[in-house]
């Protein structure tokens, strides 16, 4: 909050109180100069404005987070001390006040003043305190909204990315070419390939705007994606999928594995001529979910080709999404476990979906 806001509110209150007292005093047919009242109230409230601004500036974030215990043990004594100090400063500024009374020393004047003003001081302090808290809540609410909006954007991008991955020229035209070739030799195989391709597209479009999905749904997508790829690789890549049964309901960001697999195919498995291996494993480690994707290929060579930029891009995207969903609570690593094998590992806090997605399953005649 800008210091001018504090000063403005302080000045406004000072004028109002000065006016009120002036009217009161006049009704009692006594005379006091309005300027003196304005000065006294002005110093009072400008001091408070200064104090509140300093509180906001120096301690604002602490006051916003303080719990009930510390509010009582810490903030309450602090508020009393602040009120006392404020009155002391005020009394120092006006050695001639109160008017129409025998002259008093500094401390008696402070006590006289505190008897009248202590409660006002505390009220101002605590009003400021609760105002800061309210502002804090509002800010956090806005931040949460902004993060949610950011997540939505990321998800839409991930979906587009997945659709594009299915439709990326390399994959799309090779698939179409395979179908075209099969049309002449094996019509039903061409049909099957078209069917798989549309099922994959249907699933990736149908997923909607859900951010976290059960691992089971992610794996189903992965299976379909791998079945498609398997056709292109004519079965030379052996696939191995292992998911611990208690992890079927574990929540993962939608389409978190697909870019990793795409990467494994395009930069690992497609670079070798012989038999390859692609292994996906989901297991529980303590209270965390661990996802491993191991592929055989040519290892990681950081100097290799401009392709590597794209290679990084897909994985950077995965990391960005993990960071957004599990700030500080996830790990991501990519490393060569042997000269021809690359392992991508993700660990996440394990959370199971509480309300299972609406399933179609019914029994009937």
């Amino acid at each position, binding site marked *: 909050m800008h210091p001018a806001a504090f000063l403005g509110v302080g000045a406004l209150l000072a004028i109002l109180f000065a006016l009120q007292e002036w009217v009161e005093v006049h009704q009692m047919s006594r005379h006091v100069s309005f300027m003196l009242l304005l000065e006294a109230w002005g110093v009072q409230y400008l001091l408070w404005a200064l104090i509140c601004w300093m509180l906001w500036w120096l301690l604002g974030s602490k006051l916003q987070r303080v719990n009930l215990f510390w509010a009582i043990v810490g903030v309450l004594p602090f508020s009393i001390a602040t009120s006392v100090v404020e009155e002391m400063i005020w009394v120092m500024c006006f050695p001639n006040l109160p008017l129409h009374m025998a002259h008093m020393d500094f401390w008696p004047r402070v006590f006289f003043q505190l008897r009248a003003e202590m409660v006002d001081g505390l009220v101002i302090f605590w009003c400021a305190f609760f105002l800061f808290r309210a502002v804090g809540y509002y800010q956090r609410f806005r931040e949460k909204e902004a993060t949610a909006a950011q997540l939505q954007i990321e998800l839409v991008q991930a979906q587009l990315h997945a659709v594009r991955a299915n439709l990326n020229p390399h994959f799309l035209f090779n698939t179409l070419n395979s179908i075209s070739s099969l049309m002449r030799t094996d019509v*039903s195989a061409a049909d099957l390939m*078209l069917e798989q391709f549309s099922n994959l597209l249907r699933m990736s479009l149908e997923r909607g705007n859900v951010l976290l999905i059960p691992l089971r749904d992610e794996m189903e997508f992965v*299976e379909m994606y791998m079945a498609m790829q398997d056709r292109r690789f004519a079965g030379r890549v052996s696939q191995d999928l292992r998911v611990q049964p208690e992890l079927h*309901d574990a929540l993962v960001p939608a389409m978190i594995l697909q870019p990793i697999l795409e990467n494994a195919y395009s930069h690992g498995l497609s670079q070798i001529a012989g038999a390859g291996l692609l292994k996906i494993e989901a297991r529980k480690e303590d209270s965390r979910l661990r996802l491993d994707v191991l592929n055989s290929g040519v290892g990681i060579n950081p100097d290799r080709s401009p392709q590597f930029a794209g290679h990084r891009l897909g994985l950077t995207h995965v990391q960005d999404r993990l960071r957004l969903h599990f700030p500080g609570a996830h790990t991501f690593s990519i490393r060569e476990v042997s000269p021809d094998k690359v392992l991508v590992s993700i660990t996440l806090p394990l959370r199971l979906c509480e309300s299972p997605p609406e399933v179609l*399953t*019914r029994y009937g005649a």
Partner: protein
Amino acid sequence: MIHTVLADDELLARQKLRQMLRQEPEIEIVGESSTALETIELVRLSRPELLFLDVRMPGKDAFSVIEELSSDSAVAMPAIVFTTAYDGYALRAFEIHAVDYLLKPFSSGRLHTSVQRAVQQIHAKQVPALSQSSEATAAQYAKRIVFKSRGRILFLPVGSIRWIGAEENYVRICTDSESHLLREPIGRMEEKLDPQMFLRVHRSSIVNLQYVKEVRTETGGESVVVLLSGQKLAMSRSYRTRINEWLARS
């Protein structure tokens, strides 16, 4: 021959079906229609036993067509295979006992399965092999299960299930060629399946007795159920007596 009508507003969709159905010797196409009204007319006139029906057509949707046909007592309701690009009507289709629900585009393999099921269903109706009483007892058990798997809708006849394995909150349904993971408790599946046909052999598995080859005691002393496919499933002692009873019967 099974008299068949193809209803789809798209010419190419009908053409594809027609060509694919040439591979099916039992199917004879008696007519094609492209709107709801045409379909109703055509079915009334040609009395087909099988109808391939697109859900969305000009005029009324497929369900209104069916409603209209079933209100006409003079027309025997044909077996229905839905063909559509939308999966949203699957449950309604299942509930009105449609034979199958094909999501476009489908392969000839997928169509072949549908045709086989339709043929079976049509023949079963013509030859009432089951007596009334056994039909009544069988009715409380599921004959088919509808679910989504890998972007498809399946109306799976329970007879094609080889075995079912529990995986926590899920069950894995294994057929001859595939396995499907459904979010269902195995206990619920057991309740829904005919005990004459399926047997719980372990806390986490149910077998279709049709596919059981033998029950064997392994060298370690553990009992296993061996399926015709060679697959072995662990068996609990507590279930042993039940399977022995069954073995003694057969």
